[in-house]
């Protein structure tokens, strides 16, 4: 297939627009993205039903970045992202049950209910979270890449950050060090054009994020096209192993507000949102491709979506069954090695525990 729009390259030769795929891949892209979409919509409902608390940042609209990236790499490559992390976790092999149980603060959650929406991890398949501080994950990701190179593992790290985060100074610090050390670090700017309520151009003098690395090469990618993402990530991985850091700017869009407290409609028009839905939706693009190539019928795809919906509903039901964390979990995992030291609850004469 061809990518929808050409790549724009900065200080490098971009990859070709034609991407190889298989019928299975097309179908799995469709299915995976539909699952993500459904999962996030369900999280929205659970939030409104007050079963999810605090911050909750949804990923619907941006699914192509997750699936395209995963298709280009292996589980030995690392990924790290910010708080908008549900779908990346899923893509890395996490289960729906772990997602929903975590969101509801239950024992079966991927962080046993202790992390919450922003703090999902799956270290065994190279997913390092789930970080709540804007920009912090960028040096952390470069540190993963450092460790890969140090350990002579021939793998790379993809660090995802938003257009808002792209202005953070620590990004420039980490990029400079990564370039000096030629680390296999791929900086993926998910440009959904808003950082909370701030349009990119109001936060950045130069919103051409793929060029913001200055001396570091960059590539602008249609982040609504899973194949463009896949192609770019493949290219970036090769580049990074050979030459060090590269920036990928993914042009994408979040349908939801920034988090559940943001209606998402005061700083952008409804027309803008529905325009993207109609013309650039990542799932619809794949649906059209599949139908165009006669790989499945409309009905088959609809059935798949129904299946997906059922999966989600079942996971939610299961998650609801999962109990709250045991009260003793308050004092576990403070340290990997707690030396049995005494730690205190709010009333230290009433609640204390020896740290495991």
């Amino acid at each position, binding site marked *: 297939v061809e990518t929808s729009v050409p790549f724009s390259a900065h200080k490098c030769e971009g990859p070709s627009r034609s991407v190889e795929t298989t019928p299975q891949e097309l179908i799995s892209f469709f299915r995976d993205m539909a699952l993500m979409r459904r999962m996030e919509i369900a999280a929205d409902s659970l939030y409104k039903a007050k079963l999810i608390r*605090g911050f909750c940042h949804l990923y619907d609209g941006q699914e192509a970045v997750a699936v395209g990236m995963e298709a280009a790499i292996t589980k030995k490559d690392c990924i790290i992202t910010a708080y908008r992390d549900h779908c990346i976790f899923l893509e890395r092999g996490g289960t729906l049950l772990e997602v929903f149980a975590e969101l509801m*603060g239950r024992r079966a959650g991927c962080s046993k209910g202790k992390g*919450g929406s922003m703090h999902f991890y799956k270290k065994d398949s190279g997913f390092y979270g789930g970080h*709540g501080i804007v920009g912090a994950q960028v040096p952390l990701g470069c540190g993963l890449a450092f460790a890969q190179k140090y350990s002579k593992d021939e793998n790379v790290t993809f660090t995802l950050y938003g257009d808002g985060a792209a202005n953070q100074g620590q990004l420039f610090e980490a990029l400079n060090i990564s370039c000096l050390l030629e680390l296999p670090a791929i900086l993926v700017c998910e440009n959904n054009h808003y950082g909370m309520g701030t349009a990119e151009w109001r936060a950045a003098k130069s919103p051409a994020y793929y060029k913001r690395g200055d001396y570091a090469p960059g590539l602008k990618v249609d982040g609504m096209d899973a194949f463009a993402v896949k192609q770019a990530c493949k290219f970036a991985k090769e580049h990074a192993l050979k030459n060090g850091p590269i920036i990928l700017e993914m042009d994408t869009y979040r349908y939801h507000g920034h988090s559940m407290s943001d209606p998402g409609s005061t700083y952008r028009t409804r027309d803008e949102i529905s325009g993207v839905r109609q013309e650039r939706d990542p799932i619809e693009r794949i649906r059209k491709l599949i139908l165009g190539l006669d790989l499945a019928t409309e009905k088959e795809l609809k059935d798949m979506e129904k299946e997906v919906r059922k999966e989600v509903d079942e996971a939610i039901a299961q998650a609801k069954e999962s109990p709250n964390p045991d009260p003793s979990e*308050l*004092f576990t995992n403070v340290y990997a090695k707690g030396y049995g030291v005494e730690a205190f609850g709010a*009333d230290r004469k009433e609640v204390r525990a020896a740290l495991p």
Partner: protein
Amino acid sequence: KEMTVREALNSALDEEMSADPKVFLMGEEVGEYQGAYKISKGLLEKYGPERVLDTPITEAGFTGIGVGAAYYGLRPVVEFMTFNFSMQAIDHIINSAAKSNYMSAGQISVPIVFRGPNGAAAGVGAQHSQCYAAWYASCPGLKVLAPYSSEDARGLLKAAIRDPDPVVFLENELLYGESFPISAEAVDSSFCLPIGKAKIEREGKDVTITAFSKMVGLALKAAEILAKEGISAEIINLRSIRPLDRATINASVRKTNRLVTLEEGFPQHGVGAEICTSVIEESFGYLDAPVERIAGADVPMPYAANLERSAVPQVEDIVRAAKRACYRAVPMAATA
């Protein structure tokens, strides 16, 4: 008359901006978005983008710019979306703001306010729930205020903006929507509270309970329960963590002979530890029982609701501690 803390903060900002053209507000989403928690609602419209500045998400950069503007003589109010993010800019708060007047022997004063929600909210997890009261209040050169009620919020924020020194102003997200009765005097635009003075929220004679910010509300609830059991608790709303009103605290303890300190932050090197030590230093002989310290659990904030609840002080913790303090009238018994 009632007013929410949000309205109190908003009106204080509004009045000080209208009184002094050198006052301006900067921070993430304070303008077009009307503030992440709507504290700055309407201000952009009223004062324009020169005085209500939306910044990129770059705390070190905009905080440093705020401090530099204060060097020049402006009176910036810098909003942190929450104080957790102030860590990215903490060097400017400590090294560029707090120490400049001293290092320059008075040449460079720094009239700036750093404000935003501090401490635990609800369900926001370990990285978004820290209380920074003890850290900032350890640093000479800073003043650190923490309002509880709407009156506090108005009076202290106005005092902070008018003050010629850097003030760290710790709000609480969960209080923003709370309504408090407010006096006619407190809604006047000239209203202002003194920095460095605590407020006795409720008089009592059996035990002193110190608290700040949201915890004052819990202490008042505990006092009601205690009253029913015949224990009369005196509740001190600290208002100012630095300077700390040692005089008021010690006077109260000399009267009640018992002390419970209450805070939401981590216990070690916390506000409670300082208050306990101040009382030991100044009123040791007056204490009839060991000081009781209630604080946040000594763990990162967990997300799950049941764990979160046990990580922050509850009314029953305060009641229990106050009772312990009261039933142990003889010091020796405390260590039995």
